[in-house]
C-alpha cells in the first residue's frame, strides 16, 4: 500500500516536472522576449539592460533555476496586455470557470450514470442500441456547433435565454447544456460498461442465487462495484470537462479561464498563457493523484496487484 502510494506520488511529480520543463523550453523557443516586450525600436543598450535585469544573459541552467524560484514565489511576470500581475488575472478568471464546471459535472453525472445503468440493464435490446446511437451523436456533434445551435434555437428563434456573460442563473443553462451533452454521451458509455462489469461479477451472481431480489442486487451489490470502476475514469472525465469548458466559455463569452486563454493566445500574452497552462496542468495532475490514491483506498483489489 505504502509503495503503491509513493509510486503514484512519484509519477505525479515526474509529470509535473516535465510540464514545467516543457513550458520553460517553450518560452525560450518563442524568440527573444526583449524584442517582444520592448518592441523593434529598442536600442541595443535597452535590450542589454533588459536582459541583465531579467537574467536573460545567464546560461540556460541558471535561468532554469531562477525560473523554478520564480514559480515557487508565484511570480510569473505581468500581462503584456493589461500590465497587471499574471497571477491576479488568472485568479479572477478562476471563479467563473469553477462556477461553470461544478454544476456541469453534477448534471453530467445525473444524466450519464442513469442512462448507462438503463443501457446496461437492457444490454443487447433495442433500447440499448438506441442509447448507443444517441451517445455517438452527442459525441460527434462538436461542442462549438452544438452551442451555436442552442443559441440559434433558444435565443434567436425563441428569445428565451441570454447568449453571453454570466450575470444570472439563466446564463448558466446553455453553457451547461453544451458541455454536459457531450460529456454525458461519453460518460454514459463508461457507466454502461462499468455496470455490466458489476452485474457479471461472481459475487453479484452469487447474490442472485441466494435469492436476493433483483432490485436489491442491482442497487446494493452491482451498483457500488460499478461506482468503484467509474472512479478510475474520473481523471479522464475531469480532463474532457476542462477541454469542454475552454471551447464553451468562448462560445458564450463566459469570463473564465478558457476565454482568457484563447484571448491571451490570440494576443500572444505569454505570461498569462504560461500561468494558465501551469495552473490547469497542476490542478489536473493533483486531481489525478487524488483519484489514484482514493482508488487505492476504496478498491482493495488494486493494492494486491504488484507490477
Amino acid at each position: 500500500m505504502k509503495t503503491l502510494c509513493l509510486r503514484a506520488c512519484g509519477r505525479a511529480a515526474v509529470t509535473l516536472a516535465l510540464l514545467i520543463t516543457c513550458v520553460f523550453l517553450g518560452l525560450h523557443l518563442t524568440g527573444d522576449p526583449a524584442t517582444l516586450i520592448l518592441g523593434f525600436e529598442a536600442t541595443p543598450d535597452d535590450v542589454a539592460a533588459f536582459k541583465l535585469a531579467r537574467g536573460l544573459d545567464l546560461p540556460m541552467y541558471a535561468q532554469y533555476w531562477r525560473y523554478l524560484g520564480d514559480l515557487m514565489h508565484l511570480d510569473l511576470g505581468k500581462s503584456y496586455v493589461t500590465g497587471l500581475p499574471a497571477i491576479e488575472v488568472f485568479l479572477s478568471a478562476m471563479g467563473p470557470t469553477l462556477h461553470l464546471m461544478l454544476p456541469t459535472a453534477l448534471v453530467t453525472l445525473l444524466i450519464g450514470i442513469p442512462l448507462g445503468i438503463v443501457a446496461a440493464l437492457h444490454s443487447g435490446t433495442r433500447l440499448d442500441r438506441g442509447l448507443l446511437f444517441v451517445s455517438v451523436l452527442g459525441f460527434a456533434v462538436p461542442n462549438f456547433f452544438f452551442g451555436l445551435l442552442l443559441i440559434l434555437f433558444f435565443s434567436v428563434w425563441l428569445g428565451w435565454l441570454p447568449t453571453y456573460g454570466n450575470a444570472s442563473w439563466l446564463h448558466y443553462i446553455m453553457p451547461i447544456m453544451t458541455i454536459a451533452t457531450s460529456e454525458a454521451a461519453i460518460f454514459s458509455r463508461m457507466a454502461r460498461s462499468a455496470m455490466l462489469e458489476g452485474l457479471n461479477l461472481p459475487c453479484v451472481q452469487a447474490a442472485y442465487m441466494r435469492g436476493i431480489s433483483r432490485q436489491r442486487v442491482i442497487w446494493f451489490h452491482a451498483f457500488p462495484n460499478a461506482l468503484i470502476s467509474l472512479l478510475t475514469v474520473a481523471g479522464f472525465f475531469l480532463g474532457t470537462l476542462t477541454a469542454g469548458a475552454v471551447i464553451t466559455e468562448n462560445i458564450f463569452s463566459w469570463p473564465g479561464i478558457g476565454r482568457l486563454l484563447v484571448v491571451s493566445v490570440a494576443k500572444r500574452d505569454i505570461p498569462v498563457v504560461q500561468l494558465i497552462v501551469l495552473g490547469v496542468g497542476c490542478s489536473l495532475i493533483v486531481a489525478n493523484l487524488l483519484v489514484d490514491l482514493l482508488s487505492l483506498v476504496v478498491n482493495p483489489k488494486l493494492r494486491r496487484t504488484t507490477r
Partner: protein
Amino acid sequence: MPASVLCATVTLIFLLVAALLADLISPYTPEGTNLLARLKPPFPLAGSSLSHFLGTDELGRDILSRVLYGMRISFLIACAGTVAGMTLGVFLGFLAAHKRGLVDDAVLMLIDFNASLPFIIIALAILAFFGSGLTIIISIMAIYGWDRYARLSRNLARAALTEGYASSLQTLGAGAPRIYVRHIFPNIAGMLIVNMTLNFPGTILLETSLSFLGVGVQPPMTSLGMLLGFGRDYLTSAWWIAVIPGTIIVAATLSISLLGDFVQNQLDGVTQRN
C-alpha cells in the same frame, strides 16, 4: 454491411471527392464578393436563388464555394497531421521496443505526459509560443495523435520480435531498420490503419475547434471551423452561414467514426476466428 455503414461510406466518398474537385465544381471563387447578393438564404427558402445554392454570406461570397475550399483545407490538415503523427509515433514506438530499458521508460513517460493534459490546452500553448501557420497547425495535429500510435506500435513490435520471423531475419544478417520497416511495419499496418480511422475524427475536430476559436487557420485560407466561427456573428440574421459548415463537420466526423468502428469490429472478428 449495415445500412448505417453504407450510408457513412457514401457520405464520406461524396465529401472527399467534392473537396478534391473544389477547383472544378465550385461555382465561384471562395473570395469573390458580390455586394448585390448579400446574405442570400440557401435554395428552397424564400428569397433564395439557384445561382447561390447554399446562400451567400455578409459580403455576398458564395457559401457552397467557401465550404468546398474550407473542406479541402480541413481534410488536408487532418490527413497531413495524421500521417505525420503516425510516422512520429511509430518511430518512437519502434525505438522503445528496440532499445528497451531507459529509452522505453522515457517514451512511456512522454506518452503518459501527453495524456495527462487536455490536448486543446497544449495546442493553445504551442500556438501562443510559436504563432500560427499551416506548418505549426499540422505539427499540432501530429503531436495530438502520436501517443496512441507509439503505444500501439511499441506493443505490437515487442510481440512481433518474439515471433520466429524477426529472429530468423536477424540470423540472416538483416539490420534493425530493415527488419522494422520492411517486415514488422507491414505486419502491423492493419492495426495502425484502424487506429487512424479512430483518430481521424478527433483530428478534424481539433483543427475546426482551433479555427473556430480564431487561432487556427488564418485568412485568406478558409477551414470549416473558421467559417463556423465567422458565422457565429451572423446567427441572428443569417443562420446558414454557421449551420452549413457545422453540418458538414458533423457529417464527416460521424461517418468516419461509424466506418472506423465497423472496420475495427471486422478486424476483431478476423483475429478471434483465427
